[in-house]
Every structure is written in C-alpha cells, then in structure tokens.
C-alpha cells in the first residue's frame, strides 16, 4: 500500500527536484482528477505552483489545505516549505499546533510543534509543549527541552531587548526545580551539566553551583569539557573563590599527567592564576583592613573612620552599616597551600614561571610571557600604592625579545608590556632596539624575522613628534631590507613558490604604514602614490597576501580609483559570513563611486552580493538551533540565538541597505507607492538595536602607539550607529512627506544638528541641513492615514478618499510650526545615541537657501579640486549634491508627481509648484557646473602629462632615500601603477559627471 503510494508520487517529486515545475503541476492535476481530495498531492501541487511563480493559485490552494487542518506528516512537511516560501512562518506553528491537538498521542507531531515554536523564537510556547511531551511520553529529553526553553525565555533571547526579563527569577527557579527533579541527573552529559550550572549561576546560587562542580562527577566534567571548565572558572570568580582558582591553576601548570594532555600550557590558565592570586592579595588586605577598622576605632581620636561605603565589599563582609563583629565574620581560612603575605604570593608566582620557562625552554612561550604579565600586574599595584616602579619589566621585555625575536608573533606578544613602560624606560628600550637593529643580519630568515620585529617595535615604541623625514627614511629602510633579504634568498637558492607567503611581506606593510604616516604629516598625495607602488609591487611578488590587498583597497578609494579597489577586494574572495564583517572595506560611503546612472552597476551589485548572507541567516540559522536541541547541545543554543540576532541586526546590513537606497534613486523613477513600502521598512530598521560586526582588525596597523591606520585611511570619519540613525531619519522624513503620511520620526532635525554628528563628514552635515531647509520651506501637504495610503497603494481606494484630507496649513507656512500633532509625536532619541548638549543649530529655510546649497556645493567642489585635496572629497561633494537634488524631488512628489494615483490637487498649490520648479531648475544649473568640473578632472587625469607627473612624483624622491630607489624599480613600474590609478580616476569622474547630467534630465 505504502509502496504503491510512493510509486504514485515519485514522478511529482522527480519533476520538482529537476525544476520542471510545469510537469509537476500537470502530474498533480492528472492524479487529482482521480482523487480530488488527496492531501499529499494537493500540498505538492501548491508547492509546485509556488515554484512556478504562480503565487496566487498557490496561496489559494495553500489556504484550502490549511483550513482542512491536516495531520499527516508528509503533508505538514510540504506545507511547512510552502509557508516558509510565502513568508508566513508564524502560520507553521499554528498548523502544527492544530495537528497536535487533533492527535495528542502522536509524539512526532508534538516534537514538530515544539520545533516550530523554536524556529520563530516563541520560547514560552515551546516550553509548554515540551513539558506536555515529557508528561505524555516520559522521555527526559523533552524535560530538558522545556528547561532550556524556560532559560531562553528568561533571557528574552533574540528578543527586541535581550537580557533578563522581569519574570526571569520565576522562570529560572522553575527550570531549576525541573532539572533537580529530572529522572536523569544533569551530570550525565557535559551539556546537561552546563545547563544546570548556567541556571544556578544566573540565579546567583553560587554555593550550590560550587558544590556541584566539586562533586566527583563535576570535577571529571570540568576536566573533559572546555565549555564546562570555562563556566566553572566564571562561577569560581563570581563566588570569590579566588584561592581555589589559584590553587587549581597552579596545580594544572605544574603537575604532569593531569587529564588535559601532558601539561597544561593554556594561556588562560596562566592568566587566571595571576588574576586570582591578585584577587587573593586584595581579599587578604581588605580582610585585615576590616579587622583593624573594627577593633581599633578607639585609637582614632577624631572618631572619623572611613565611612562604611568606602569599606571594600568582600564576599565575607557582613551586611549592615559597616560594623563588623569579628566573632561573626568568618575569618578567611587561608588555603594550606597559599601564603598570606602579598610578597610571598607574588614571589611564589615568579618562581613558578621562572621554573616553567626553564623546564619548557624556548619551545613554549607561556612561562616566559607569564613572567611579563606578572610584572605588569605588580607594576600597576605598586604604582597604585605610590611606590617607585622597579625596572624588572624592562629587563624581562629585553630578555623575551632576545629569546623569541625570530618568531613573527614576538611583536604582538610584547605590545601590551611595552605599552606600560614609562617615558624614560622607553628611551632606554629604543636604544636597545637600535643596537639590535645594527647587530642583525637580515639576509637569513631568522635574521629577517628579528629585523622585522625590531622595526615593528620601534614604530610602536616611538613617541609623538615624528617627522616627514623620519617616515620617509623608515619606509626606505624597510624596503632596502626587503631587497637585501630577497637577494640573500636568491643566493641561498631558496626561491619560494609564489603561492607561499614571503617572509619579507611585512616589510612592505611596514613601508606602506610609514608612507601613509608621511602623508598624514604633510598631506602630500605623492606618499599615497608611493604606498600604492610598494603594495602593488609586493602583491605581484607575494600573490596570496591579503593584507596588501586590504591596504591597497583603502588607498585606492582615498584616491577615487574605485576600479582597482574593487578588483583587489574581489580577489580576496570575501564570501559567506565574511561579507558582513568585511564589505565595509568597499561599501563604506560606497554611493560616492556608484556609476549606476551611466549603466555601471558594479557597486549596486556589491551591495546585493553583500546582503545575501542575511537571507541565508534567516532561513538557515533557526534550523541549526533546532539541530542543537535535537542533539541536546544545550551549551550552544544561546550562542546560536545570539549569533542569529547579531547577524540579523547587523549595523553593516543596514548601512549597506541605505547605501543601496542612495545608489538606486539615481536610476529609478520615484513612485510614492514604492516609497511607502520602503518607508515602513526603514522605520522598522530604525527600531532595531544594531550590532557592529565589522572587522577593522584585518587592516594591518604598525603605526606609533595611539595611531590607527584604519582611521587614517578611512574615506571620511568611520560611520556607526549615529550616522545610520541620522540618515535613516532623514530618509524616513522625506518618504513620509512624499507619501503624505505621518511618521513618528522627529520633524525637527535640530535634534541632530546639536550633537549627533560626530560620525558625519562636513559635507554630510551640510547635506543634513539642506534636508531641514526642504522640510521647513516646502509646506507639508495634507496627510492621509497609513491605512488610506496603503489602500491607495493596493488600488482599493476611491480617488475621492485620496484627496479628501483637508489642507491643514496654508502653503508657504513652515510645516513644523503648524503641524502640532506631528511635533508631539516626535520620538525621543534612541537610547544608544548620546547627545552632547550643545546649542541647537537653526537653519534659515527658503527657496533661496535651498538654491544656495547647490551653489555652495559647486563652489566647494571646485575649491577642493583647486586646493589639490584628495579626489574622493570632490566626488563626495558631487554625489551629495546629486543626492540633495533627488531628495528635493522626493519631497516635492505630492506637488509635482506625474503618477496619477497619488497626485493631489491643492487649491492654492500653484505658487508652491512654481517655486519648486524654479529651485529645481537652478539646482540643475549648479549641478551642471559640478558635472563640468568632474569632466575637466577626468580629461586631465586621462592625459599622458598627468601620468608622467604622477610617476615623477614618485621618482622625484628617487634620490638617496627614495622608495623607488630602494625597491630598485624603474619608472616603468610606477608608471604602470600610475596608469591604472589615473584611468580608474578618469572613469569615476567621467561616470559621475555624465551620471549627474542623466539625473537632472530625468
């Protein structure tokens, strides 16, 4: 019977699998003729219809099937697909709920219902179903599902405001009761145990948690599971069990043959040993202070002992107002293996680390580095006590350098310790490095590694006041070393394969850092050109080094050579989740280089490509959360939910979304219908709590302390939450005007003008002011309700409805003043945005000031170009002016829309329309000026003379210290880089120039 059924359905499945949806539909129809009520076939047909893009039919059939409340597994599975496709995920839950209600004895249906709740993050329902399942089918797994769901509910995991909810204690206590009374103890598996400890820790029942950990099974689980051990450490520290932690870490480091391999050399163990030892010291001291305070108040003649609030809280201090009864206070019972005296404790650690360093030799850096970490802590402590600082740290740094300077990681290892040296010590340290630099022979791999570490440490340790010459000489030195080394390698016959990283790669990165510094100091653009020559050269020698490409992308973008930037970025093959963390490299203010109006959609495509991961996240990550439930990996579930949330509410996601909007409007016709949908989307985005997942650490930084290459090479100040909020509100406000609906967004941009602008460039601030001018100058059209607007959109409104709303204010009146309703609905600034409280900036709004914006923009673009500022800035002004023109069109839509449906007729709108048209015409004139300026630049950039000038700029420095000289490169290579850069600049300027013309003529 089953076989027969399967045979019947097989052709449908086959057709679906092979993408022949039409054939699938036909087969379904044929079979349905015989059995019109066959549920599986009907479900398959709705799926096939959906895939064949026949949404309406699919939806109709889908609704019919759902109305019949199916219970069959297969049907439910297919319908789940259909609903997911239709973006009706919440109905999946209802469907399973209904099915399970009809067949409460069906375990599989129950489990499916549970999963469907998990999928949509409805933890409360999941908890209830899981408990029901446990009661009916007695499987402990269901009980743990219920417990986990209660924990997620308490954490409000994945909710709008994640964090403990008000009823968290009730939920967690319930979870605790369930886990304590579970038919299987939590120690059966690490993940069950982890869940148990999490509940106790969150409830602050640290003693109980501690007891569990110290049980035989608990100890064993800590030894075998890293996750459990992590949580154990957190609980120890929360409980103030620093002595126990210190003893445990000490044992793990010194005892051979403990569970985790032979010897524990996990850096976390070293760190924890040091941290907990200092906690013990603090505890001992505050304890003895407590005792002194409480037994000796009489000796204080003034009777003014320290106020109770100053007494440091310790885990053993009693409650009350500072009076401590020595009898009631449990005396700290020093662990038998730990001395009480701070000095003895510190010396103990010193000895231990020295011994480990000796035993392990140079194969293992842990003991050596731990000595440094310890001295750093000692230094902080002694500085706090006003003691003079011992010089042990510096000598240990030197010793470490001596031991490990042939390893690439030496620089990174030493950074935090060098950073805590004092001025005088730094001078001595720099002197030492100088000696080292002179003594090293960089022609061998080990010697080269040492030289590179010296260079990196010298840059990092150097103080302020570096000059152009310093940087230029350094760049040359690094490159000479490169040449020296590479010649050595050839002599040694050790030519490396070009797919390997080259040992000298970091020299090019160092040189690029120095050259960028020289540019920062002098603003001479030629240093950026030289940096590019170095990076391109290095990239041609070491093809796999992504760091060259990352740096090149940033410098090319500063120079408005977007083509080579894109091509390096694409060669890095950024994909999957990396697009979230790395697309900022190419998309930050990406609209500056969008040539969409002239048909080059490279940048818009990058936006689309970078956004795909978010769809993947929404469709796949929930399945993974379900998987973690199925395999009972409770330690992972919260992490997965947080991951999903971080990606879903990624800052970069919405920065890209806005950037895409800004690019799109340069080519798409403005329609109020589309804007209304987009308005709702942007309002939704504005409500989100964003996460910044962007990776700036991939930008290699070898600048002096306190400087960041990422900041130095950023095209405009780095954007963040504030930038996003301001631009979102700007567009929401404009869209709302265009669609004639209300919005809760602040109608007064002064809120922003008074202190939200730290992430905006000067020109973006001007653009924002322009938006305020528009808002105040153009009278607010009569508004309609959202419902009416939506109805008009879907075509169900009668024309009279759309025009029925009476004009609320006479034309010419500033809208914000009369529209009291709207003003009251101003939203307060989102909580994550700080205001600096400076005085609000006011704008004078009139047709003249609107025109003046464009006039000023044209003048500014010209001034920037004349002053020889970076070309990106000129492009930035130009594209913002273009955006302003589009914004003007958006806001004017109610008055001059050509689309019949939403056009309004206002009795006295005549003057407004006239004035809008006049501004537009004048704005277009100024934009034409900008376009001409860009065309002129493009022509100049394309000339042979310009290329010679560029290459000569590099060659002009090709005397004693020059980069080109050091690289032993002829002018040819520089010339080729110049050609590539200039051509790309030409393309950008030409494209923007023609794009502007297209936009204003549209």
């Amino acid at each position, binding site marked *: 019977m089953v076989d027969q059924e399967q045979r019947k359905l097989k052709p449908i499945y086959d057709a679906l699998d092979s993408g022949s949806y039409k054939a699938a539909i036909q087969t379904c129809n044929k079979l349905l003729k015989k059995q019109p009520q066959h549920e599986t076939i009907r479900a398959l047909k709705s799926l096939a219809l959906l895939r064949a893009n026949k949404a309406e039919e699919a939806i109709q059939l889908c609704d019919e099937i759902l109305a019949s409340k199916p219970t069959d597994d297969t049907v439910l599975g297919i319908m789940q697909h259909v609903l997911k496709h239709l973006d009706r995920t919440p109905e999946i839950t209802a469907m399973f709920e209904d099915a399970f209600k009809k067949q409460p004895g069906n375990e599989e249906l129950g489990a499916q219902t549970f999963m469907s709740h998990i999928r949509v993050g409805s933890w409360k329902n999941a908890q209830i179903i899981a408990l029901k399942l446990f009661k009916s089918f007695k499987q402990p797994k269901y009980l743990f599902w219920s417990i986990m769901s209660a924990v997620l509910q308490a954490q409000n995991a994945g909710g709008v405001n994640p964090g403990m909810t008000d009823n968290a204690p009730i939920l967690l206590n319930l979870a605790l009761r369930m886990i304590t009374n579970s038919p299987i103890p939590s120690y059966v598996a690490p993940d069950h145990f982890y869940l148990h400890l999490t509940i106790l820790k969150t409830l602050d029942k640290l003693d109980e948690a501690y007891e569990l950990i110290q049980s035989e099974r608990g100890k064993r689980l800590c030894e075998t599971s890293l996750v459990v051990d992590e949580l154990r450490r957190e609980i120890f520290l929360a409980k103030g069990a620093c002595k126990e932690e210190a003893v445990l870490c000490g044992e793990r480091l010194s005892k051979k043959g403990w569970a985790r391999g032979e010897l524990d050399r996990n850096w976390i163990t070293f760190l924890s040993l040091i941290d907990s030892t200092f906690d013990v010291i603090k505890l001992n001291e505050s304890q003895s202070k407590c005792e002194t305070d409480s037994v000796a108040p009489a000796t204080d003649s003034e009777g003014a002992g320290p106020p109770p609030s100053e007494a440091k809280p310790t885990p053993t201090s009693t409650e009350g107002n500072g009076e401590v009864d020595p009898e009631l206070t449990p005396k700290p019972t020093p662990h038998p293996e730990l001395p009480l005296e701070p000095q003895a404790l510190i010396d103990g650690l010193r000895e231990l680390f020295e011994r480990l360093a000796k035993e392990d030799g140079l194969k293992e850096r842990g003991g050596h580095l731990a000595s440094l970490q310890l001295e750093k802590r000692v230094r902080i402590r002694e500085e706090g006590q006003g003691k003079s600082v011992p010089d042990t740290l510096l000598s240990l740094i030197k010793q470490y350098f001596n031991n490990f300077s042939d390893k690439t990681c030496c620089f*990174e290892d030493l950074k935090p310790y060098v950073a805590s040296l004092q001025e005088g010590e730094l001078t001595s340290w720099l002197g030492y490095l100088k000696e080292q630099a002179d003594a090293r022979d960089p022609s061998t791999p080990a010697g080269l590694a040492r030289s590179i570490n010296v260079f990196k440490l010298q840059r990092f340790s150097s103080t302020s006041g570096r000059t152009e010459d310093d940087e230029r000489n350094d760049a040359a030195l690094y490159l000479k070393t490169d040449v020296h080394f590479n010649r050595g390698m050839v002599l040694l016959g050790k030519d490396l394969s070009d797919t390997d990283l080259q040992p000298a790669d970091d020299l090019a990165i160092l040189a690029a850092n120095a050259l960028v510094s020289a540019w920062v100091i002098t603003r001479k653009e030629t240093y950026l050109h030289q940096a590019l020559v170095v990076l391109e050269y290095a990239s041609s020698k070491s093809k796999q080094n992504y760091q060259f490409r990352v740096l090149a992308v940033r410098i090319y973008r500063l120079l408005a050579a977007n083509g080579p930037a894109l091509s390096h970025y694409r060669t890095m093959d950024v994909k999957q989740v990396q697009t979230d963390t790395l697309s900022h490299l190419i998309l930050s203010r990406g609209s500056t280089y969008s040539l969409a109006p002239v048909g080059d959609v490279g940048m818009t495509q990058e936006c689309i490509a970078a956004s795909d991961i978010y769809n993947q996240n929404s469709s796949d*990550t929930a399945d993974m959360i379900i998987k973690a439930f199925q395999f009972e990996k409770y330690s992972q579930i919260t992490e997965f939910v947080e991951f999903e949330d971080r990606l879903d509410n990624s800052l970069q996601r919405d920065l890209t979304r806005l950037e895409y909007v800004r690019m799109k409007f340069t080519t798409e016709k403005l329609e109020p219908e589309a804007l209304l949908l987009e308005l709702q989307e942007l309002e939704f985005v504005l409500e989100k709590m964003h996460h910044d997942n962007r990776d700036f650490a991939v930008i290699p930084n070898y600048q002096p302390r306190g400087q960041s290459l990422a900041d130095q090479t950023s095209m405009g100040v780095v954007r963040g939450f504030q930038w996003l909020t301001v631009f979102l509100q700007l567009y929401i406000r404009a869209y709302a005007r265009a669609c004639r609906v209300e919005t809760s967004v602040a109608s007064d941009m002064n809120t922003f003008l008074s202190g939200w602008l730290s992430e905006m460039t000067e020109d973006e601030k001007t653009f924002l002011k322009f938006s305020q001018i528009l808002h105040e100058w153009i009278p607010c059209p009569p508004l309609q309700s959202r419902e009416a607007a939506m109805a008009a959109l879907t075509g169900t409104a009668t024309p009279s409805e759309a025009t029925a709303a009476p004009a609320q204010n006479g034309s010419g009146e500033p809208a914000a003043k009369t529209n009291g309703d709207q003003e009251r609905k101003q939203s307060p600034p989102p909580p994550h945005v700080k205001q600096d409280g400076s005085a609000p900036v006011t704008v004078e709004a009139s047709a003249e000031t609107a025109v003046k914006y464009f006039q000023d923009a044209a003048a500014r673009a010209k001034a920037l170009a004349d002053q020889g500022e970076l070309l990106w800035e000129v492009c930035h002004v130009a594209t913002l002016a273009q955006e302003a023109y589009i914004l003007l069109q958006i806001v004017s839509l109610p008055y001059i829309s050509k689309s019949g449906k939403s056009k309004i007729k206002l009795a006295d709108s005549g003057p407004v329309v006239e004035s809008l048209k006049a501004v537009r015409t004048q704005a277009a004139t100024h934009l034409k000026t900008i376009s001409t300026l860009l065309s002129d630049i493009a022509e100049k950039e394309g000339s042979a003379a310009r290329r010679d000038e560029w290459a000569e700029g590099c060659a002009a420095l090709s005397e004693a210290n020059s980069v080109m000289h050091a690289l032993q490169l002829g002018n040819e290579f520089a010339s080729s880089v110049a050609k590539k850069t200039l051509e790309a600049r030409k393309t950008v300027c030409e494209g923007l120039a023609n794009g502007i013309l297209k936009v204003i003529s549209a």
Partner: protein
Amino acid sequence: MSVLRPFKADDLFKFNNVNLDLWTETYSISFYLTYLARWPDLCLVQEAPNGKMMGYVIGKAEGHGQEWHGHVTAITVAPEYRRLGLARKMMDELERISTEVYNGYFVDLYVRCANILAINMYERMGYSVYRRVAQYYSKLPHEKGGRDQEDAFDMRKPLPRDTMRRSVRPNGREIIISRDQAP
C-alpha cells in the same frame, strides 16, 4: 602559548585573518553550526593573548563498530602563527576528546597527496597513511592538477582503544579506494 578554547558561533565574526588565507575555505553558516550543534567538543580555537584568532580545528565523531573514530574535518592556522606548534596542540586535544568522551578507536584526517609538508607533520604526530582515496579533491585554481593534487591520503592514528592497532597498516599508500567508497 595561546588560549585554547571552544569554538563558538560568534567566532564566525572573528575568523577573517585565518580564512582570508588562500588555503582556508570559508563555508556557509550551516556548515559551522552543524558541527557545533553536534560535536561542539571537537571544535576548538587557538587565540592569541590579544584576542586575535590564531587557528581552529573542526572535527566530528563517526563510523560503525570498530570504525568508530574521531575525524578532523578542517584544521588551519593563520600564516603569521605557523611553526609555533599550534596544530599539534589542537590535534592533541581532539585526540584526547576522541578517547575520553567518544571512546573511539582512532582519529583520521584527509590530506592532498601532494601536500608533503602537511603529511610529514602528521607523521611526526603519529599518523600514518591508511589508504589513498582517488579523486577526492577538486583541482586547486593555482595548481596544475594531477593525481597527487586531487587524490587524498586517509591518515590515521590509533587511540588506546585500538589495542590491535587495526588503524595502522604498512602498505596504506598502495591501497586505493574510490571517492564513493570513502565515508
């Protein structure tokens, strides 16, 4: 010297410096989370003291009967942290978990036959070639291709439970199976 800790879902936001290396592939979200949802204890990260990721290993436990074993799906170390013994530390931990938690007979891994450096390293760690899997890998974009490029060695290291040392055989290199026969 590094922090050895569990691989966590949000490490996907942190692994760029490791994954931008040509030899390390970046897979879909589901790939990583599937492993974490099932074998979180076989997925580990090595982290530098400053929080930078140095490398990671992703593994699983599979097989029936005497084939029950730990498998290394991916192991990678960022270029700047190579030759510090990090791979060995991660393998040690994975072998330990395969023994103590999963009670497997052996740990195995696949490696391109042409990757002599890696093969030597695994041999130093106690692995030996158990068999050769024909045409296991696709051609690398930068290489010429050929049998050694596309074939894989299945290398195994016996765990204490494999008292008979069935996972070691001297003529492993000569035993060739097709891709379909490999698990």
